[in-house]
């Protein structure tokens, strides 16, 4: 029997599927916390975790952007979220995609987006084609370019048929200025997988608090061939600096690794 979140209107899915894919393709990013990172390094792979919303074991990833969602069940105010860790997957790592949503589905379920949506809209109405080209198509249709997506700056509203209710709502959501209410998750493309991720093979880099770099964690990541991208811990007490800091790190790393070229900017 299909899950309730998998059966919905197809308007947005069809619209996005028909859009031109904006390149280059970005790596997938998984956000977790310091405690889980230690477990992952011990197990040397990231295992899908039970998810109450979908009733199955899943790993949540975001397309290119470090949207912070350490695990689906934890409250957003838990202490472990305070110093997030972001795993950047190797570009082109073939992953078995279960679902794609244009935003964080957990935030949708918790009602964070309700100001932008019709009350009759369901999560399933925003489900997109589970294909590796889909995020780029969504970006092409709504953001115009990959840098615009990375910095959360959507383009002008696309010309749409008035019946494209979900597309209008999505554009309103990603254009919202109330960053505190929905933070980066409103415009980060979510990708779900049920497959484990072997760290050495699938992870290119880890964004993590600088204090990890001095200790055994740094050595363990080095042994796995994973780049360390440390951020300043003290900045975490100054959120105005902090939110852009991790995005800056990812952006810099993508350019440095040749994933984004000067011509893409």
């Amino acid at each position: 029997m299909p899950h309730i979140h998998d059966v919905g209107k197809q308007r947005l899915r069809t619209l996005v599927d028909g859009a031109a894919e904006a390149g280059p393709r970005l790596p997938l990013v998984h956000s977790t916390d310091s405690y889980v990172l230690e477990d992952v390094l011990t197990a040397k792979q990231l295992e899908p975790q039970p998810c109450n919303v979908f009733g199955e074991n899943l790993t949540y990833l975001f397309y290119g952007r470090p949207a912070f969602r350490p695990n689906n069940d934890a409250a957003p105010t838990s202490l472990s979220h305070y110093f997030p860790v972001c795993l950047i997957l190797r570009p082109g790592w073939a992953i078995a995609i279960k679902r794609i949503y244009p935003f964080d589905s957990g935030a949708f379920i918790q009602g964070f987006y309700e100001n932008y949506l019709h009350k009759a809209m369901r999560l399933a109405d925003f489900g997109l084609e589970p294909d590796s080209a889909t995020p780029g198509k969504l970006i092409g249709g709504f953001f115009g370019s990959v840098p615009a997506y990375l910095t959360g700056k959507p383009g002008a509203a696309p010309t749409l048929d008035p019946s494209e209710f979900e597309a209008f709502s999505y554009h309103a959501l990603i254009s919202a200025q109330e960053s505190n209410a929905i933070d980066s998750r409103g415009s980060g493309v979510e990708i779900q997988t049920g497959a484990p991720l072997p760290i050495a093979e699938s992870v290119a880099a880890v964004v993590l608090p600088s204090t990890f770099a001095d200790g055994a964690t740094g050595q363990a990541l080095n042994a796995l061939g994973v780049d360390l991208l440390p951020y300043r811990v003290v900045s975490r007490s100054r959120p105005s600096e902090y939110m852009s800091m991790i995005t800056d790190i990812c952006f810099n790393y993508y350019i440095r690794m040749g994933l984004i070229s000067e011509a893409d900017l």
Partner: protein
Amino acid sequence: MVALIGLNSVGGPGAGFLLPVFAAHANANHAFIQRIDAQNNVSELLPVLLERPLPEGPVPSLEVDIGQPGIWAFRDETGEVHIGDAEKIQHLGSELLARGGLATSPMAAAELVQFCSAERRFPSVLKAAFAGLAAISRAGAETWLDTMILLPAIKADLSRNARSSEDRRAIREVIAVTQRGVTNVYGDQRLAGALDNPTDWSQLAQMFDIAELRFHPLVKSTGQKEKGRPQWIVTGIGGIARFVLKRAPYYAALDNPVAPRGGAYVKGSSTEPRSGSSVTPPLLIGISGSNLSDVQVIQEKFAQQSNGSEFRHLINIRPTGFGTPKTSKASPQLISESLDHFDTLWLITAHRLRQTGTFTNAMSASNVASRFVRAALNGLIWSVRNNDPAKILSRKSRHSGIGLVGAARYIAKLAPEEMIGRVLYSMLCEEAPLHSAQRIALLWPYTLPAQETLRTIQIGRHQIDVELFPSPRASGAPDVIGFAMNVRLSKRTPSDFTDFCVSIASGYNWRLRDDDGQSLIFEHEGEAIRLWPITEREKLGSLVRKKSEFGSHGDLIVTNQTLTDSMRQSAKRHGWGLAHFSEMERWMRSNYHAELFADW
């Protein structure tokens, strides 16, 4: 108020900053962590869930509240944890770094260097951190250097040339990538030229043998034009208005054709007001001195900008010259009567308590006045953007009200009563007594418990009620800004002046002990002075020819009249202290080393 209950380790047992965790009481369900602003004060206490017990270990008995200095914790390589405010940790950190106490924790050392703003003092620490990171992750080290070290310096260099809110938005989005000895900076084309002299970047780049910085302008991909009317417009005339408006946070272009001749013009964003504030009409603010011709120009500009629905406020800088104002300077009453459909005439007067008669200090009076003009602007604009919670902008009647504005830099270590006293002191005005205000509202830069928003403060002879309104700002130094609404104009009687002198003396913590109708006796820390408030020229001339009883340190004549050399010489011969009321600061400083408590 919450108490420290533990310290959360961010990454393993090594050296580095720890996260202080607080609770309202020992068995509380919720814990809190601090959000600390750029001034190192707690701007917010965020509730958090503790999923795991905090690491065991004794923590000192420390409490913190919003608006107070934030608490930081740093663990050194010996495992010793240092806890205290930023100043203390910076002091300890500098000592630790100077003796090489973090040699095996290069990233923790680098973080401490940045916390202490000591990059130039400890270049070897940054280089060691880079080398240590490069040994395990070359790309990671290069990204760290770009994003954690160079990019903040580049943004600081750019910020020095920022001229508008659009510039500052563009600066936030700048990207820097260093490759092959060149730092490539990608940013909005509006920033082209703003990195011609990147001093902050240069100092750091030299440490890492980076020779060149190249700016690559990016064409803005989306141009979402703002619609609607500006939420606020400021039109100013005169040097002080130009000085204030061309600097942060306004960055007015002085060659704007809309500006009056010799003035400046700046407008706010035309984006919609914040949620729930759509009912607040736009705000027109004028800034002028006391020449009626300038006030008339502001009126004309308002007529051009108005459709009749706006709030209209005029900030009037009272004369900055020494002593009694020239007759060409209009009184508040004259200005008020000349205003057509204005809501409030705000008087800036703090500088009139700080004049000493020399050219240098006349410049200083202008400088002081400019700070209060900026504070008044900040407060009025904050009000219109936030639906005027303190009812500062509200219309009164057909006639404009007269108000006083004061301000003081927020100092977290001071008790609220003293902070409030400082603000009130800066609102003392010979022409309009502060205690006559219908209401006094203070915009407080941090949130406050509801029970602490009403206060009564003694200034001189008067118990003054004030209402505090939290007005957190996203950026900039936190100030407390006061607005006294609907004050009455002084009748300028001798008793009004006496009352004014008592209030001034209270600013130096002199307490009134006796008033015999002619003189006032004040005492402070075992010392006493007798103060003679004089408003009549003849009486002044007569008094300085009599012999003083207590000498020039004990008998002080204070007047609002212009003092001539012959008066001063006569006073000196007869053993009097003699001061215009604006000279009290100098007199107190030289005779009693008493600092004005409201110094800003």
